[in-house]
């Protein structure tokens, strides 16, 4: 009841803003002042790095400053609240990642898809199960066998309960691979748990542990996706192993619903140029992102919606 009232108010407010904005904020003069880029996470993380790179590359294209503002808290919810409190005129946008999106699959989310307009998807990359380099589990089959023989004994370090990590592991559990999920919200503790042998495996994106992969301290035994990646051609995908789950990490840029379509298009076009720049391509490669990550404003909403459907399906059958 409360949430329907709230979303009604949100839609109404958005519509109202659109009416007011319709007259003056067309793409012709846009942007006339700096555009705020909200990062709903603290400084230094993956979302923050993306924001600062995009800001740097996009500023000369739009001719205005794009200050990055970190508003951490509530798995991204605090930053999203700030975005939704700003007028829908295209002068505020936010980094939107899969982990925040996962909140929508949970109970009483603080915003819905009706409140936001995805402008572009900037990076997509599958998640992996990693083990320590000298782990006794040579392959996924070893891990699976041990986990099935000793349900609830093997420890897998993840981001936390209710996250994408949690959803993916629940699919494994339905296939008989029952593990203990140990939540570490701090990345450093998550990585030490593997390198120090305190946990048996790690759920993570490859870009975040690149330093451990390159220095041969960790190795992947499975990736969550439909097919293998060229950079990890010996690592089997979850689909070929019989687990129908593929929830990639993604980082997108969103604005408020009701932002004039031509403004959205202008920013989306600029982001397309950002994505095509050699500097961004290098970043994508370092992050082990899908080379075809970018989705513009015409395709991004469908992608983001599909992700939510997939997450909900994972939770529903739980």
């Amino acid at each position, binding site marked *: 009841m409360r949430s329907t009232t709230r979303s009604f108010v949100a839609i109404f407010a958005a519509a109202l803003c659109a009416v007011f904005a319709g007259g003056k904020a067309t793409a012709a003069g846009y942007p006339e002042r700096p555009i705020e880029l909200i990062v709903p996470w603290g*400084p230094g993380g993956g979302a923050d790095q993306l924001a600062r790179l995009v800001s*740097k590359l996009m500023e000369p294209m739009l001719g205005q400053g794009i200050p990055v503002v970190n508003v951490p*808290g509530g798995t991204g919810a605090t930053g999203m609240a700030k975005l939704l409190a700003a007028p829908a005129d295209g002068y505020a946008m936010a980094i939107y990642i899969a982990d925040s999106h996962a909140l929508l699959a949970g109970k009483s989310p603080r915003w819905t898809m009706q409140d936001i307009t995805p402008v572009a998807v900037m990076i997509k990359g599958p998640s992996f199960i990693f083990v320590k380099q000298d782990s006794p589990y040579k392959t996924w089959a070893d891990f699976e066998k041990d986990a099935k023989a000793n349900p609830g004994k093997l420890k897998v370090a993840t981001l936390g309960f209710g996250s994408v990590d949690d959803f993916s592991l629940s699919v494994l559990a339905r296939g008989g691979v029952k593990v203990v999920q140990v*939540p570490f919200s701090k*990345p450093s503790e998550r990585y030490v*748990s593997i*390198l120090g042998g305190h946990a048996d495996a790690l759920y993570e994106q490859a870009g975040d542990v690149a*330093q451990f992969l390159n220095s041969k*301290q960790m190795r992947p035994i499975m990736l969550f996706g439909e097919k293998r990646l060229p950079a990890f051609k010996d690592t089997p995908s979850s689909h070929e192993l019989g687990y129908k789950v593929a929830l990639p990490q993604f980082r997108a840029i969103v604005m408020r619903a009701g932002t004039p379509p031509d403004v959205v298009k202008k920013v989306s076009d600029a982001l397309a140029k950002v994505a095509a720049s050699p500097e961004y391509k290098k970043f994508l490669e370092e992050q082990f992102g899908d080379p075809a990550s970018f989705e513009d404003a015409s395709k991004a909403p469908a992608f983001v919606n599909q992700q939510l459907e997939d997450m909900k399906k994972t939770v529903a059958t739980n």
Partner: protein
Amino acid sequence: MSQILLQLGQGFLDCLTPINLIMLVVGIVIGLLIGVLPGLTLVMGVALALPFTYKMDVTASIVLLSAMYVSGTYGGAFTAILFRIPGEPIDVPMLWDGYTMGRKGQPAKALGWTLVAALGGGLLSATIMVMLTQPLAHFALRFSTPEYFAVLMFGLSSVVALGRGSLGNALISLAVGLLIATVGTDETYGASRFTFDTRILADGIEFLVVMVGAYGVGEVLARLETGFATKPIQKVGQTRTELPSWREMSALKGMFLRSSVLGNIIGLIPGAGATIASFVSYGMEAQFGKRRKEMGTGVAEGIVAPQAAATASVGGALVPLLALGIPGSGATAIILGAFMLHGIQPGPQVMATSAHTVYAVFASIYLGLALMCVIGYFAIRPLVKILDMPEAIVSAYVLTLCFIGALSIRNNVIDLWLMIGFGVVGYAFERLKFPVAPLVLGVILGPLAEASFMNTMISFGNDWTVFFTRPIAGTVMVFTFAMLALPFLQQWRARRVAAA
């Protein structure tokens, strides 16, 4: 050994190029400013500087960031000692003896001690880091959640040293702090606690808001009560000495060593950092030190212990970063980002592939410490003069600093209201003779301790004995209990002596 010295020498030469020297100075000055501003934490400062390093050469950018990191642990001591606002959470222990020494008319001396402590702790820790990178890194890997919890319990147990007058009041204050820390969405299961369905509380209460409010705003309120009439300090101009004499320092060399080694070890632990190092080191000194009875009355030990440990923790935190690629703290995570940006992968092979850069980083820590102290030395005199200004004016600036600090934490106006609220709480606590420090300690360490406790329970199937059966956790726990039991034992013995 000679190999290390040779490479370190090369590192010094690399640091002495004009561009690197400029970066070193810039980094130190910015780091000091960040330290001074409450709310603008080290991590934020280093993150804000990162984009400027994109175009720099790798050595210059790491030199800039690590100089900021080192001097950021020192700058906050100025505001803590002069105005009773901790610029960083690490400076909270600086309030007890540092501020008290300042109030007794020796602010320049108190600042002199922090300078010596930062230099001594930093240099010792840097030397340990250079000599023992590999073995220390492997030691760091042995820490897991039970060990984090044990270390945090040890930090919390330093509360017995903080409740000067009454242990009971200190424990009540700590409990209030721990309770405040539970407000918001719980980290492990996402349950809402004490949020009363409001958005304000759903994201929890930032410890920085509590810290800045209870100390900064609370102090201004206390001065307002007296109508800014009290001349706080006897004429500052009379105090000439700034640096402690060689004799005074050599009397404390044992505790310099103790605090620095402790700071270094705590810096190594991925779940802990400068803040915990500072609290634990103060607690150790107050409980086991030679002049433990006088701690809190403005003695040098109370300044040296937290400052030496805080600066020493930087060297410790860089070890797992360089040797294993594990960022042990927020700031080192960003330094890792800078390394990777320039195509250097910290990790076991880094000494083989990029020894040049690594030794330049080591050398920059030494040079940074030295330069930081020179800048700090010349800053003491003009800064102490501020205390000669009318109190009302100083208080206005203090309040402005508090507001800027509270807003910069997460750009949230609600935090300003919370900060004012905690200012009133801090003032009320002082009036009712409840110490504020345990409250702040509880708010800072509470969430960390809770998360590591929950994680241990999940990870070890609710077996609480792991805290005592794992060697490192068990040892730390024994120390914790010793710390907690000591005041009671002393009381008991005093009574026996009195009876006999």
